[in-house]
C-alpha cells in the first residue's frame, strides 16, 4: 500500500508541485481583476498571500512526520514546497509595503521595531529568505550536508514566529490562527515524540 503510493509519487514530476503552487496566485489574480475581493481588496490580497505562505510552510513541516508515521515520502517535493512558501511570503511582504503601507518607510520602520506582530513576521520572513537563498544544490555542496541541515532547522523558529505573527495581529482570539498555530505546534512536537525510525538512520559504517 505505502510502497505503491511511494512508487506513484516517484513518478510524479517535481514540476507538478511548482505548477500547483501557482494556483492560489492565479486565483487571487483572477479575483482581483474580476473585482471579487470585496470592499477592501488590499487587505484581502495581503491576507490571502500570507495565509497561502503559511499553508505551504505547514505542508513543508508535515513531510518528515508523515514519513516517520506512515512511511509515505514526499521528500522529493520538499524543496519546491519551501520555495513556494517563500515566494508567497515575499509577495505578502510586498503587498504590505506597497499597497497597505504605501511606501511610508519611516512609519514601517518604526512599526516593525515597536509592534511585536510585525517584528515576529519580519524575523520569520528574514529566516525564510535565508533558507530560500540557500536552497540550491550548489549551497548544499558548498556548505556541506551537516552545516546545511543545521541551518535549515531554522525553519522551526520561523514557523513559530509566523504563527505568533498571525496570533498577535488579531484583536480577539480567532479560530483560524489558533488552529494553524496548533498545527505547527503539533508538527514540531511530533519530531520530538516520533524519533527517526532505525531503518532510516544512516547505514552503519562498514
Amino acid at each position: 500500500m505505502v510502497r505503491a503510493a511511494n512508487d506513484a509519487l516517484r513518478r510524479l514530476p517535481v514540476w507538478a508541485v511548482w505548477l500547483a503552487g501557482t494556483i492560489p496566485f492565479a486565483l487571487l489574480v483572477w479575483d482581483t481583476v474580476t473585482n471579487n475581493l470585496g470592499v477592501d481588496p488590499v487587505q484581502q490580497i495581503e491576507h490571502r498571500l500570507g495565509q497561502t505562505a503559511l499553508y505551504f510552510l505547514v505542508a513543508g513541516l508535515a513531510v518528515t512526520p508523515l514519513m516517520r508515521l506512515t512511511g509515505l515520502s514526499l521528500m522529493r517535493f520538499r524543496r519546491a514546497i519551501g520555495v513556494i512558501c517563500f515566494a508567497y511570503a515575499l509577495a505578502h511582504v510586498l503587498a504590505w509595503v506597497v499597497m497597505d503601507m504605501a511606501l511610508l518607510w519611516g512609519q514601517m520602520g518604526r512599526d516593525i521595531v515597536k509592534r511585536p506582530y510585525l517584528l515576529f513576521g519580519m524575523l520569520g520572513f528574514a529566516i525564510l529568505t535565508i533558507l530560500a537563498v540557500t536552497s540550491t544544490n550548489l549551497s548544499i555542496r558548498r556548505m556541506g550536508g551537516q552545516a546545511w541541515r543545521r541551518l535549515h532547522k531554522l525553519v522551526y523558529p520561523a514557523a513559530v514566529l509566523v504563527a505568533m505573527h498571525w496570533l498577535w495581529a488579531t484583536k480577539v482570539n480567532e479560530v483560524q490562527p489558533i488552529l494553524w498555530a496548533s498545527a505547527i505546534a503539533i508538527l514540531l512536537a511530533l519530531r520530538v515524540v516520533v524519533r527517526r525510525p532505525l531503518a532510516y538512520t544512516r547505514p552503519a559504517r562498514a
Partner: protein
Amino acid sequence: AQGLNARPSPLSTDEAPNSFEDITNYNNFYEFGTGKTDPARNAGALTTDLWSVEVTGLVDRPGSYGVDDLAPANALEERIYRLRCVEAWSMVVPWIGVPLAGVLNKVGVQPSAKYVEFETLVRPEEMPGQRRAILDWPYREGLRLDEAMHPLTILATGLYDQPMPNQNGAPIRLVVPWKYGFKSIKSIVRIHLREDQPVNTWKQMQANEYGFYANVNPTVDHPRWSQATERVIGAGLFGGRKETQMFNGYGDQVASLYAGMDLSVNY
C-alpha cells in the same frame, strides 16, 4: 423602501461618502462574526421589529421606549461623518439620525448623572457571533455626559436615506464621529444614566489597548500598530494612506471637552 427625507445638517462633512455597497459590506459587528463580511452575511436573521430601548438609572422618565419615540421621523437629520476605525482604516458615512442630546432631554437627565452607558442586544439565536465568548456579551459602551450631549453625537436609525441595515446596527445605534468606531455601539437595547464611569467592553477586554475615551488621536498609538495614518476604504489597490487628523478632524468642535487632560493617559 421609501426615503426617510432627513434634513441636511451643517455639521455634515462635504467629503464624498463611501458607496452603500462599501458601508454595508465592511463591518465590525462581532455579534455576527469577526470577519468584515460576516455581518453582511449573518445579520439578515436579526429581527428588529417591536424593538424597545430600556432607559434606566438617573433619569426622570425611565421606561421602555420605541425607536420612533426616540427618533421620530420628523426629527431625522442627515449627518455625513468621517468614520475612523481603531484598526486604522476610514470611511465617510451619510448617517440618518437625531442628536442624542434631544433624546436625553426628553427622558430627563437628573443632576447627579455624569455618564451614559449603552448596551447592545444579546440574542445568540439570531447573532451567531454571540455563541462564542469572544467578548463579554452584551457589548457595552459609555460616554461622559458632556460628550453625550455634544451636538455631533447622534443616535442613528438609517444611512443613505434608508432604514439602518442590520449589519450597521439596526434599528438604532450610536455615532460619535471624533472617537474610534468601536465607541459607536450598535443595536442598542439599553441606555443607562449613572454617576460613575462605566466599563466599556473593549477596555474590559484589553485595557492597555483600548481606553474609555478612545478619541481619534494620531499621536497616541495603539500598542500593536500606529495610529498616525489610515487607509481609506474604497481608494483602490494603490490608494495609499492619509494622515489621521486629531479628533478625526472634529477638533474645533470637541477639543475643549478635553482641555487639561493628558490624552496619552486618557486614551
